[in-house]
């Protein structure tokens, strides 16, 4: 029985992928609907996240991930200027598990980060967004579609990210 279900599932995927516009699959994906927690433990659905027509960045991180903290610290230093200039909204999604999710709020406050932080303690959103390695950053356009994504962090990468945001604001398309 399991095999039949799997074959059915495969055929379904196959049939759909064939007929699909490639632009639809990789780019222009809107956010799936997954439950996340805010730092004060309210539940929030990911498909309700938006930035009123402006670009939005979603960055996956965890307390145990050194490059993630580097990236967010570097962005944290310039975030105010970014918002003033471009109106961008950054949401840092922590995939910290039960071990450390209660530590995220004091950590974030202690660092003085001013962007939003949400919790994904069961990694549901991480899986739904096909994230393997963190840091993994998604850029969404004003319509809430994923237009660009990047995995890993190298010193200075945030400059490329804000450059993309500027391009989006000027109505250019992202390659």
């Amino acid at each position, binding site marked *: 029985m399991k095999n039949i279900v799997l074959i*059915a599932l*495969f055929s379904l995927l196959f049939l759909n992928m064939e*007929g699909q516009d490639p632009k*639809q699959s990789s780019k222009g994906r809107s956010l799936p609907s997954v439950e996340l927690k805010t730092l004060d433990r309210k539940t929030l659905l990911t498909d309700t996240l938006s930035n009123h027509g402006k670009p939005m960045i979603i960055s996956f991180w965890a307390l145990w991930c050194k490059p993630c903290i580097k990236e967010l610290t570097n962005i944290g230093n310039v975030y105010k200027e970014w918002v003033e200039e471009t109106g961008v909204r950054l949401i840092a999604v922590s995939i910290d598990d039960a071990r450390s999710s*209660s530590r995220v709020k004091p950590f*974030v406050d202690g660092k003085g980060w001013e962007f939003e932080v949400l919790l994904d303690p069961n990694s549901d959103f991480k899986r739904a967004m096909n994230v393997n390695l963190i840091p993994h950053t998604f850029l969404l356009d004003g319509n809430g579609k994923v237009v660009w994504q990047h*995995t890993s962090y190298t010193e200075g990468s945030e400059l490329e990210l804000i450059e993309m945001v500027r391009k989006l604001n000027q109505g250019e398309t992202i390659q």
Partner: protein
Amino acid sequence: MFEKSRNHLSNKNLFLFIIDMKKLLRITLPFVLLSCSLYVKSQDFIHNAQVSGTFQADANAYVNDKLLHINDSTLNGKRLGINGFALIHYDYKNFSAGLRYEAFLPPLLGFSPDAEGSGIANWFVNYKVDNFEVTAGNFYEQFGSGMILRSYEEWTLGYDNALDGFRVKFKPYHGIYLKGLMGYQRNYWVKYSEGNRGLVRGIDGELNFNELIEKLGNSPFRLSLEASFVSKYEKMPLKTIIRPILPEGSYEVYQYKLPENVGVWLAAINLGYSNWNLMTEYVRKSENPSALNNYIYREGQALLSVLTYSKKGLGIELSAKRIDNMGFKSRMEEKENVLDINFLPPLNPLHLYSFATMYPYATQPNGEMAVHTGIEYTFPKNTLLGGKYGTNLSLSYSLIKDIEKQPVSADIPIDSTGTLGYTSDFFAFGDRKFYEDLKIQLTKKFSQRLKMIAAYFNQVYDKDVIEGHTNEYGKVYANIGVVDMTYRINNQHSIRLELQTLFTEQDKGNWMGTTIEYTLAPKWFFSLMDEYNYGNDNPDDRIHYYNISFGYTHQSTRISLSYGRQREGLLCVGGICRYVPAYTGFGLTLSSNF
């Protein structure tokens, strides 16, 4: 439209007459049925559906190394190891489905040999409507902070205890969340029909008063409650147990009736006011004699409490935990790192530098008392200590000890099979220290170009308890220092230098580590690393563990290549660790996302 789909079906039927009807029908029927339904809805399915996915492959090629005593016979023909997976997601309106293929051919060194093989490791279908959601297939779930139930997957560690079954989520009203599930857990490629594990069932309810009562929506006062119940059912034969008694060398033979149902319940409260928050969770487990606790009939208990205070620039955390006989697996006889129903979070934080994680702690399910405190503080900009950019100070201290244990009666030794095991004062610390860890870390930005992190760690590590030896090694006392400097040459080029040192008179002695990293943002990465065990008592083991690696990232595609010598140790991600043996060789990682 209807005509069209009928034609479609009859064409298929014609074809079926030619070959063995029965066999082919079994295979093609779902396909045909699906094609039909798809045909009708195809327009919508194609234009509004989203297909996405990801894959990753990690490969190592091992070479002989005299210093590590690795040669043809120790490698035993396994010169190459590959761990890989591919995941496809399909989303259409309220419906989603996914499929994950995995291959370990053979698995990389350090992964369980049971992982060897390939196939569809995971599949699911999920349907959401309004406030109701149902999942069939494999899924991941967590109740509370996981001390009662947690199924999760950690690729880097080769850990996956996904549940295979059904899950229902229901939200009857604002702020009320109900979940119910049943299934069995993944144990590598072993089929459930082989009868080596039990069934897991659970319900969970959460009540968030700030969402339930409109007036409290934006109140500084926060309250939520959670309660769950999880049971394991496993068919149990009568078990014969040989129990040592006093005087030493004497035995008694018993036939034990082991409980087929083991139940665990949880109650949790989260209470917050303004900048303060207190989370407390209590878990109790019914009698669960198992290989993990030496078949004692004592009930299990766990308490976790975390108090936090934070405002901009300052975060303080204070937590305490008691674990007492809380190992919980879906197979009574299991002792390995599989089939865990619950997850007992260690209180000590995971550090970010390799020497600070050389002696990592792992929760002792049979009993531990732990306290932890952490402070995160940023000296504001334009102050004496803050300087132009602000200075971040991070402090943390953890202490983990045994629980206090007394024999149930004078003539029965502690932890004797078939007895209640021991008695224990709930709030008392035992005498034996399992782990202690102090961290002081400063992060300072000197200019637009230069940044530095300096850290000091002091650790006490009970090697016997944590690694499961019987009083062979004693405790390890380690002092660790780290200096990590990053210099931005310009907006794209930067160089990072990391110096680490570890001093200890026990275990393998002193270490020194150097890493130089050169990055060309956002795509290129190049690094040279060396960890030198110059303080080893045995001159032959004073080895350089060097590594040279290179990485290229284009958007979400990443490829990295490395060559070097890996030191033996525990690799930890999230909450758990995996043992990695020493090896020398090439490594390749390829990961992408579409």
